[in-house]
């Protein structure tokens, strides 16, 4: 069966394969738009809930701009390093692809570490998501982004494995391209989170 499919890919006209990857890229864009709607609704909910602190702490008392700036720096940097991985991919330089993916994972993990610290600190001082409607909105919005980043990290790890085992084959390269879309998308969402949640929260 493996032999049969191997001969198949050999004789398939190259354009046919290209269409398949184009469909996947297009489908992934559409998925990102759908996911964008999820974030849009979470943002809307957060803004609606902003005043519903139920006597609990407000953003001003809770958010630390230093930490948020650190998180932002890590995430923006990780987008840049992913960009380097994409450049290395275009040059078909396997070891540099791996290097930059590992750096990206490390930066992403640093982001999650900071966010985890922020969340656990807030919960420890009695400002968890069950304290007020405002905090429910905050934890769900920022937590959903964090969940996406965690899934992104898992995905990068899987791709590191695939690059190691399979090399930079056509399907692996196309998956890396979609992973890049996903990772940069999360960056954009974070920029909005920073501008809608942290900056007005502190100022």
């Amino acid at each position, binding site marked *: 069966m493996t032999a049969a499919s191997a001969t198949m890919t050999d004789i398939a006209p190259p354009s046919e394969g290209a269409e398949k990857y184009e469909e996947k890229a297009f489908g992934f864009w559409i998925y990102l738009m759908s996911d964008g709607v999820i974030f849009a609704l979470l943002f809307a909910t957060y803004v609606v809930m902003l005043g519903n602190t139920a006597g609990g702490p407000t953003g001003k008392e809770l958010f630390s701009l230093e930490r948020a700036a650190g998180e932002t720096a890590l995430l923006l940097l990780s987008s840049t390093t992913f960009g380097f991985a994409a450049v290395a991919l275009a040059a078909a330089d396997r070891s540099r692809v791996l290097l930059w993916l590992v750096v990206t994972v490390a930066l992403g993990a640093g982001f999650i570490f900071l966010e985890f610290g922020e969340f656990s600190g807030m919960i420890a001082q009695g400002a968890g998501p069950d304290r007020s409607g405002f905090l429910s909105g905050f934890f*769900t919005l920022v937590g959903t982004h964090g969940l996406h980043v965690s899934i992104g990290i898992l995905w990068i790890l899987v791709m590191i494995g695939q690059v190691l085992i399979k090399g930079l084959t056509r399907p692996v390269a196309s998956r890396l391209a979609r992973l890049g879309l996903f990772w940069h998308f999360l960056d954009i969402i974070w920029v909005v989170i920073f501008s809608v949640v942290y900056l007005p929260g502190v100022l």
Partner: protein
Amino acid sequence: MDFFGRLTIDSLPFYSLIAASGAGVTVLGALSVMAVITYFGAWRLVVFGWVTSLDHKKIGIMYIMVALVMLMRGFIDAAMMRSQQAIAFNSDGYLPPGHFDQIFSSHGTIMIFFMAMPFLSGLINLIMPQQLGSRDVAFPFMNSISLWFTTAGAGLVLISLVIGKFSTAGWTGYPPYSGSEYTPGVGVDYWLWAVLISGIGSTMTGINFLVTIIKCRAPGMTLLRLPLFTWTVLVTSVLMIFAFPALTVACVMLALDRTAGFHFFTNAMGGNMMNYINLFWLWGHPEVYILILPAFGVFSEVVAVFSQKRLFGYISLVLATCAIGLLSFTVWLHHFFTMGSSANVNSFFGIMTTIIAVPTGVKVFDWLLTMYRGRIIFKPPMLYTIGFLVTFCIGGLSGVLLAMPPVDYLMHNTTFLIAHFHNMIIPGVLFGYLAGYMFWFPKAFGFKLNEKWGAWSFWCWIIGFYLAFMPLYVLGLLGMPRRMEHYEIAAWQPHLIVAAIGAFIILLGIVCLIVQLVVSIRDRQQALDLTGDPWNGRSLEWLTSSPPAPYNFALVPQVQSIDAFWDMKQRGVAYERPDRYVDITLPKNTFLSAVIGGAGFVFGFAMVWWIWWLALLCLATIFVAIVIRASQNDTDMVIPAAEVKAIEDARFAQLAKAPKNEMADDPGFAGQPLPEGAA
């Protein structure tokens, strides 16, 4: 103790005879299906031919099977409500309130999410790729995951009958009642996870259909040559992609409120329950059009074929479909005018709601003008279409009435509303799907459904519908609220008795559907569809054999016009033999999508019962399955040209024996399209 979360032996339904018998029927049903499969020794066929298949036609057929099973279940709920209300004047009837509440909740949930949604996904899967001249959908593996996620949701609703209880919060699950403060048990959680898991499946379905239509069309199949059914699918897919996230967000927030003590929708601590209702209907109103647009597509195909005329006003139908899609996002607040928004806000949504009736009216005129001066053949799908046109207009008018906020204040949550939306959904959605079922059944299985029983089912459905729902308009004007378990107003009872009789006649309609299927399978040799074109059709799905070869088209067809297949028949090229065949690549069967769907089902169950370790295990299973799928190199199989040739040779041998046109013997037949220059 916590190993099974909240699940204990007391969760079994031995507290009430009716609940226990419902559970018994569910379990017996499952067991008898397994027994039948075992009796016929068909497990191998079921698993390797169907469950693991990525063929869009088989996935479509499985969707429709789920839909028909759930239609029975949802109808049983309806019949129980109607009979309860018919007798519950100054009496408790036979259903206690808690049970009655579960029944109206599960009726709505099932009919929308697990009857209508799978039915439409099934018809689209079966037909849309063929109408495009394509061999499959863009993402066959994801297609299969969508199917199994939908089935997982349906399974959760069914299993709630056996283990635990279902929601009592209605199909919309409004907080604060659906919050843990007022409804602690597992019922709302069953509803939530069933809806969430199938909703994720629907989002993926939307992405899949949209990419298929945009990217997988045959050469020459420009957007303005798409059959109208496919056009409606395109708009429906866009609605699925952009509306379902709202449902996901609303349900996740409610789940967080219920399981983790969040305060999105609670009474106290800064919750805002109206936010749920906004989010829910931000999905809910587009959802109405997600359901009805493909049905409009079916009617458009049926009316052209059985009027033996080209569809009137193709462009206007396309534009009307797009307009409806756009406007569907601007009317959600009319579901809760009584929320107390300002008069300006209510006026805006009232006006938008009235405006959306305009493109719908355009469509009705297009269908009427298609019939005008056509040679109408009254096959069952056409009966359903004409029944739809008449009945749907009444429902539409009552909707325009309700679009006026002052009127809505009087009618809100009365049975007038129930009458209105059933008056839209039964003729608009269900009649459309049933018409599609009877229209495309020969395409799926190679023989036609019995027409006599089809006509009987139509007459029972439509007469039953009028008897069951017209009294509810009157009752609403008399002030009867929806969801009444018993009442003390004598004037209501006669109407409710008539409505119960109507429900009984609809039951006869369902019996006719079952008899039709059984009789048709028994007599299939007399109703074989040998040409693949049983109705003298117009679009490309009739070019394939019935049932189609796994690859649909041996060679991808070249499209030159709207009504591509009709055009080919006219040019005399529809059944031309190619001089050579090529190898065809199709996706291999796989277990992984069913594994992911199964894990989705168990995950939902674990979340309902707070069995956290099991939920984590399921997520890990899904992750591993996806990684395995992503590392497989040989997910495709090749049908060699020689095998394609053998299949096509058999097809042409069959065509040679078949009549030139299967409709030629029909008394209303207006003549087959002639090759150019032949006349």
